[in-house]
């Protein structure tokens, strides 16, 4: 686990939550690129990411995310882990 990058760990969460092993995230990936990523599964993803990285997002964190790159930056900011 330790050797995986943040993006790889995020990909793993997305694969589990959306039950799709083919998912590979890039910084440019958005909800439009992944069919199963709808508003309901988004909530499950947020919670699973919190657990995966042991962080808690606050109200202002969650709103403005536009793509995986911004999501990753947020995790780096919250955890101090290097991407």
């Amino acid at each position, binding site marked *: 686990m330790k050797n995986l990058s943040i993006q790889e760990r995020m990909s793993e*969460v997305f694969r*589990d*939550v*959306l*039950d799709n092993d083919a998912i590979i995230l890039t910084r440019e990936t958005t909800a439009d690129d992944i069919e199963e990523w709808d508003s*309901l599964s988004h*909530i*499950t993803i947020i*919670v*699973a990411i919190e*657990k995966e990285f042991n962080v808690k*997002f*606050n*109200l202002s964190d*969650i709103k403005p995310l536009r793509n995986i790159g911004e999501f990753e930056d947020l995790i780096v900011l919250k955890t101090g882990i290097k991407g």
Partner: protein
Amino acid sequence: MTNYFTYPLNTTGLLRKKRALRRDLLSNRKDLDDKRIAILGGSTTAEVRDMLELFLLHAGIRPVFYESEYNRYFEDVMFPESGLKDFRPEIIHIHTTNLNIRRFPALNESCEAIEELLADEMNRFSGLWERIEQDYGCPVIQNNFELPHYRLMGNLDAYDRHGRTTFISMLNHRFAEEARKRKNLYLNDINYLSAWFGLERWHDRLFWHSYKYAMNYEAIPLLADSIASIIRSIYGKAKKCLVLDLDNTLWGGVIGDDGLQGIRIGKETPEAEAYTEFQRYVRELKERGVLLAVCSKNDEANAREGFTHPDSILSADDFAAFIANWDPKHENILRIAETLNIGIDSLVFVDDNPVEREIVRAQLAEVTVPELGSDIVKYIDILDKTGLFETVSLSADDLQRNMFYVANTERAKQQEQFASYDDFLRSLDMVAEIAPFSTLYLDRIAQLTNKTNQFNLTTRRYTLAEMAAMSCDQNRITLYGRLRDRFGDNGIVSVMAGIIKETELHIELWLMSCRVLKRGMEAAMLDSLVERAKTRNLSGIVGYYYPTAKNGMVKDLYAEMGFRQLTDTIDIGTAWYLDISENCSKKNTFITVTP
């Protein structure tokens, strides 16, 4: 897979892997029961639905869901043009929380005004329940209320009439009163659940403001587990028997090595106290109607000696089955199921030894084996929070059940002394009370109908309300049978029901508790049914047998009772005919029937 569904729940895993878990559960289990379940929410319910589906699939129930639009629980019930009517729910869950309380008392309101407010709130809910009873007659699983997120008056909130804490407590109290009165109302106790989970975490304001979830996302698996426990219990899928290891499970130490003086039980050490507390919990389960059995690798004499310890709460007599030997435990567990005449899937096996747990899991997939760990202070939580023995009502039979089985053991001893089995049956002085369903016994009749799997010709399940309706139906003949003998009262042990079509009675229900197998009770029941059919001028009885995984023991019953098999095929199973117009001889010889 099992460890996702026993306490402590792996909530993170359940939420993150729910889609894969669902796929696995659907492909692993065959004989699933389909149920139509409506979730009527006062807040977002999507995750409640997903989690409830997992827990129900795990229990052998495949739900089809109806979900109200966001916060339309009231409208869906009250205005029949909603889709709820077409859905024809078999169970309705009303998922409301304190966020759905319309108004709390204002600080300047009078006592009378507050009382009125309380009555208004109650009327809104009781109106819902009343309407559901009228339109659907199905069970309602209603959340009570969790304590408030904040306390405007601090501690005073809990006792001043204007306090929200007080108001919620009073509502919960009235909900409980209603649930005691209404047969079809079951409370999902989120007041306890939220306290157990931790109110600070439960009230997740970010999830409320962002997604309109009324509780912490991670509390939802817990909530779903709780609802599923109630549903399991309504459909008679709760567990019946706790099978216990002895050494380091019911006392500390190894009786064979340490001797009676060496085992830890009593008040001498913290460890001994913890074992005493666990024994007390087990005995309380027994008093509530759960059967107990011992399954221990020990010499039997040593095993029994353990219970003679002066501080032992349990005694050897508390166990309906007691097996101590050196055979593999899964073989002994099968023997226990056989002795008690109950299905393997109604057993829960408790052992501190992870190897034994693993073997039993591998050999007997149907037996529930909680991940007990090896820390005695956690045993109670693990068993209690898994909700295995959830019950929706306590019938008089529950409180006496262990006595029935102990009496059975005595009967078995007697049997050995008789030359023939017939002699033995005659010696029992059996007296049966066989009569139409009566309101007094309806609880037990419904309970027996919904949990009997083996001696059950049709395996139809009915809610209490449906059975009440059957008992009043002029077109039906219904019977319950209660059997007493010189060792005691077996309680209500058999149920029959049939519907009249022209000149024939078609059997809808014929079932019997396995604790009175081979006593001739089935013959006495059939005789009574024939008699009643004759007084209604019917000419024949049509019986049906629908095979399931568990009712193989009755596949030849109709033939044995003199029915002839009908050649016209039915979808599944077999159909049989008994002509009662001519001389139809009585089948019962050993039981005196009253009234």
